[in-house]
């Protein structure tokens, strides 16, 4: 083994371990310090949480191209998506990378408030992102400053199979009446009207969002998310009344807590259910041959006159405040965020580009969502992204209980109100 490969091996070990062996890395740090600087252009380390292999491949390709262009070495450490959610809390404080993946909106703000993300308004100015980004700019802005770059967005709504709907002569429901009629028709055809797996509780949070947005509108919904409105407020009564109506009419999958969204999606794919409330990633529950049958419809109107607001969740990338190579990270952002590069990265995942100048997608689902977004008045992100994580945990647990035991509504709401009062003092 030549000296050079040996050195780069040490380098690789050091880079991949640094973030994870926090506190026990003293010995490793020793080798790191005595290491001669090979990469003249510095080094940028990235922690990503990409579960999608195609997307990881695009990121690696971009990193390789960036290194060739600038001489800056890029190291990508990919983590499991769920494990990353807890790991980020420690690595932002000790052993921060130069770039990390995260979620925009309230989840980003939690770290901005603690001074853990770097202000990148300068990059926005220099690259002129403000003109290129639409509504998503707001998702990375706190107090007029930008703290991250928005990546792909997921538009939530109802999904169904075109062939099934054509076959039965159904149309996507526009109003609450349509929805109730469609549900009745699905039941008489021996199908579950709405497939939902609540083993992980989050799908219940999305359902609550849709109903509340359709009944109370965005402003009141966000006030509830921010803890300014009580969970026992009379404005929520019609939401839970209507929801109870659906539960009592057996609209949802029986035994929901027995399975997750993947199995619920499979039921839709196997024509056992008529609709499902999810994001475009529902396609991963479908066999490749059936994906073309998937169609999107916005959640139906409930109260006439309430504008159309939707859950639109946007992932993002950030520079930790404790990053070592902040300039290198900005350079990489600028490269990765070029329309064609960003487009390729998001195409692999099937999410909606935040830039209006990305090349048009080849994915019909993405294009449908982009079209649908044009008529949306305003967006929230998702229950567990908009409210405090502690509140979200209790809230979604409560919704799951409500879906099984609607009679316990008052108890559940009283409990949620207690949690709200504790968190939002």
């Amino acid at each position, binding site marked *: 083994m030549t000296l050079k490969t040996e050195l780069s091996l040490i380098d690789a070990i050091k880079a991949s371990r640094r973030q994870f062996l926090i506190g026990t890395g003293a010995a490793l740090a020793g080798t790191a310090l005595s290491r001669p600087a090979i990469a003249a252009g510095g080094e940028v380390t990235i922690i990503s949480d990409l579960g999608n292999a195609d997307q990881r491949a695009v990121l690696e390709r971009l990193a390789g191209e960036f290194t060739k262009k600038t001489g800056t070495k890029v190291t990508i450490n990919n983590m499991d998506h769920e494990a990353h959610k*807890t790991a980020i*809390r*420690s690595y*932002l*404080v000790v052993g921060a990378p130069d770039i990390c993946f995260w979620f925009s909106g309230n989840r980003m703000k939690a770290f901005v408030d*603690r001074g*853990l993300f770097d202000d990148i308004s300068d990059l926005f100015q220099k690259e002129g992102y403000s003109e290129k980004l639409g509504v998503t700019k707001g998702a990375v802005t706190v107090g007029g400053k930008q703290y991250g770059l928005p990546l792909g967005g997921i538009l939530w709504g109802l999904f169904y199979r075109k062939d099934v709907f054509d076959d039965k002569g159904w149309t996507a429901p526009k109003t609450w009446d349509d929805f109730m009629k469609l549900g009745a028709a699905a039941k008489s055809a021996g199908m579950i009207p709405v497939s939902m797996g*609540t*083993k*992980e*509780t989050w799908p219940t949070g999305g359902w609550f969002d849709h109903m509340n947005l359709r009944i109370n509108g965005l402003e009141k919904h966000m006030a509830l998310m921010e803890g300014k409105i009580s969970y026992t407020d009379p404005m929520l009564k019609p939401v839970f009344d209507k929801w109870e109506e659906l539960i009592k009419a057996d609209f949802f999958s*029986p*035994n*929901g*807590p*027995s*399975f997750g969204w993947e199995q619920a999606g499979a039921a839709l794919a196997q024509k056992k259910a008529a609709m499902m409330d999810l994001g475009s990633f529902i396609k991963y529950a479908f066999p490749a041959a059936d994906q073309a049958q998937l169609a999107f419809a916005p959640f139906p109107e409930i109260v006439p006159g309430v504008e159309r607001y939707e859950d639109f969740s946007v992932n993002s990338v950030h520079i930790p405040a404790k990053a070592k190579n902040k300039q290198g990270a900005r350079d990489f952002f600028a490269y990765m965020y070029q329309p064609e590069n960003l487009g390729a990265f998001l195409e692999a995942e099937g999410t909606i580009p935040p830039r209006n100048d990305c090349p048009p997608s080849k994915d019909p689902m993405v294009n449908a969502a982009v079209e649908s977004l044009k008529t949306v008045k305003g967006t929230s992100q998702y229950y567990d992204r908009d409210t405090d*994580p*502690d509140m979200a*945990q*209790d809230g979604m*647990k*409560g919704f*799951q*209980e409500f879906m*099984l035991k609607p009679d316990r509504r008052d108890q559940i709401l009283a*409990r949620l109100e207690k949690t709200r009062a*504790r968190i939002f003092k």
Partner: protein
Amino acid sequence: MSELWKRHRNWLAPLLFIAPGALLFGTIIIASSFESVWISFFDWDGVGPKTWAGLANYRELFADPQFYVSLKNNVIWLVMFMAAPPLGLALALLVNQQVAGMRFLKSLFFIPLVLATVTVGVVFGWVYDPNYGLLALIFNLFGATAPALLADEHAVTFAVVVAALWPQIAFCMVLFLAGLNNLSPDIIGAGRVDGARGWNMLWHVVLPQLRQVGFIALAVTVVGALRSFDMIAVMTSGGPFGSSEVLAYQMYEQSIFSYRFGYGAAIATVLFAIMIVFITWYLRMMVRLEKETR
């Protein structure tokens, strides 16, 4: 120098040998335990500054209905797990016979021990699936509909414990098998001369010799029941709506998902207080057993 060593080696040598272990145990177990207790008096999200909360976490915990659900489930786990040592003993006696094919049978019973607990949880999750699971198939055979065990707040804990019992029984079986191999042939022979056979042989000659092993099996089972966590995380994530949570899982959920490290530490402290009762009992028994065998 060598004079010094000679004079002091009686206590220096053991000290040197114990030091590494004691150091590790001290920092990883003892110091962390004390830190946990200390954190339980604070309001802390794991990142930001800690604020002193005094006994507020404990006050909230004792008023939290979820705490009592978790506590009740811990008791269910403990009581149901007590079935593991006797069942393990029965299996050990069964597979200890000298019959053709017994080795194969033994290895079948041994399988759950080789599997990771997570695997066992996933497999049982499938067994319980009300639509496609093995249980559903059996019920369908008789024209009945399978209950959705993991979606029922009253049945869920029992369903999870049954899954966890499978490897636990196998573990007890292995312990007893080892014990059966160490039986003193002299005593057995003496028993035989005195005309003991069958039930009498088992009760008066074999079982007394298995006392130590039985004690270890019981202790391991108690600890296993109290620290139950992985099975719940895999099979139900504590659901539906927290009805299958135990204290260990509630602690994890509060600290990791709700970012309430102070509250989580308070739960950990209560769990620790419960554990210490069993640990004290275990240590006393150990000391007594060692004195007996000396």
